[in-house]
């Protein structure tokens, strides 16, 4: 897929809660095809200590209105600077980057997200419904205050929630959620994005259930398009690159470092 460098314009910066915000980005040029699971490399201007670009998943795309959405969690100086962007300001992106999630065999698919790991699942869920599939979401957050856009996920499919403190949905980790232990859940594919420990636990669960599992990984990235070889991931095929061979991997391929 051809990659582009474009200046986008901020048309909305929607604060969700203390940690998360969503940027809506517009561009005069028609957006190229973007696939669920792909990401962009954002140049952060005006952040004295942010030298490299920041990789951010595509949260959603509206082709009609030509808008790209990014869901971002404030964790350091780069993301904090992004959180302060105002309407009309510019953001330079390299995109679309990486591979993408694949289509499930069955009707239903389970999409498990932890924290900011829910980001790629919105776009994936939308795409699945367009493919006449039925996404079921299982989303985990630290507490109820940190939940993200649940109403929007509900528009795409069933949503289960878990929070560490039980403030919303089930108490505990997503992998402890009863829906995973509900044998009537008729799925052939699970998608996971979140902390490594979560994804590994989901992968083990899927393996036991003999369900195919795709995980979207993170790694430290200098380029994002295969030029620096920094984002190495150990797999059964040897070292692969998270930015071009991933970020989506079938978990059977992965050799976890944790």
């Amino acid at each position, binding site marked *: 897929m*051809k*990659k*582009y*460098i474009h200046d986008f314009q901020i048309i909305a910066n929607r604060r969700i809660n203390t940690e998360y915000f969503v940027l809506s980005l517009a561009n005069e040029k028609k957006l190229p095809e973007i696939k669920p699971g792909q990401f962009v490399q954002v*140049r952060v201007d005006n952040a004295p*200590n*942010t*030298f*490299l*670009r920041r990789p951010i998943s595509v949260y959603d795309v509206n082709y009609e209105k030509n808008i790209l959405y990014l869901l971002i969690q404030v964790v350091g100086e780069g993301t904090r600077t992004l959180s302060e962007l105002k309407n009309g300001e510019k953001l330079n992106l*390299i995109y679309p980057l990486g591979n993408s999630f694949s289509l499930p065999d069955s009707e239903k698919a389970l999409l498990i997200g932890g924290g900011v790991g829910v980001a790629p699942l919105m776009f994936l869920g939308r795409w699945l419904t367009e493919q006449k599939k039925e996404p079921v979401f299982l989303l985990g957050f630290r507490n109820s205050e940190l939940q993200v856009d649940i109403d929007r996920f509900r528009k795409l499919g069933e949503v289960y929630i878990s929070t560490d403190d039980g403030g919303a949905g089930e108490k505990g980790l997503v992998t402890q959620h009863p829906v995973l232990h509900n044998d009537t859940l008729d799925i052939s594919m699970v998608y996971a994005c979140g902390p490594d420990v979560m994804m590994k636990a989901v992968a083990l669960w899927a393996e036991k259930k003999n369900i195919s599992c795709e995980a979207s990984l993170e*790694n*430290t*990235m*200098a*380029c*994002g*398009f*295969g*030029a*620096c*070889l*920094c*984002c*190495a*991931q*150990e797999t059964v095929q*040897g*070292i692969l690159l998270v930015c071009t061979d991933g970020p989506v991997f079938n978990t059977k391929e992965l050799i976890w*470092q944790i």
Partner: protein
Amino acid sequence: MADLRVCIGDLHFKNPVTAASGCFGYGKEYEDFIDLGKLGAVFVKGTTGSNRKGNPYPRMVETSSGMLNSVGFQNKGIDYFISDIYPGIKQYNTHIIVNVSGSTIEEYVMVAEKLNDLEKIPAIELNISCPNVKEGGMVFGTHCPSAIKVTTAVRKAYHKTLIVKLSPNVTSIYEFARAVEGAGADAVSLINTLLGMAIDAEKQKPVLATVTGGLSGPAIKPVALRMVWEVYNAVKIPVIGIGGIMNATDAIEFMLAGATAVQIGTANFINPRVTVEVIKGIEDYLVEKDITDVKDIIGALKIPG
């Protein structure tokens, strides 16, 4: 219109702007962004005698105005390069220069020998300065007699333009430059990365799996400029300047300090079009200053007093 052509030994570059090894893949990673045919040359990644998987990860960490990497020589080896990669890149309308790496003199020589026959590879860059491999690599670049030995051996085995890439992790880089000049190098390129380290204070652990890594980016530019100037004043062969170049002004500074050409590394990750922008910027500078030939700024630094 200024004349941008420069020569590295017998080799003619259409302009002095090239991409640094390890930062530009095999060129094709940048085809969506720029016309590779516009570049003076592309230095492709470190190639070794056989398949190397590189170092464990994390391999990268951002630092103030720079980054540390510990990629190591992840590559599939020279034979794979010749059979599977070369056919795909040989049609590029620019010079492809292979960065030759290894752990032993025999390995360097073997790789260099095999590159003799590739018509479209007019030169090699002997990498005796990588801080990211346990054996070989930097040892040759930080011990003068070893640098002479490996250069002499490769010189015998390789018949085209031989560029030796120097390590900045030494007391007197100009001594190494003189030594490899004496051993038959046609040019030197510098600097490779500075050996550095990053620590995660929260986890009380090194950030990189290999503990140390190579520092690149604008943080190192002052050191690189100083070394290019020192080496330019010490040798007669051309110098290729590398280190923290982010824009045309930076590239011009290296040429004023004595570089005949420059390599751009880390900047490509942030701006994949930086190389062609630098070419344009150098041209604008020459036009504005009424200089008709870029060669007139090489080493043109005026030293007071």
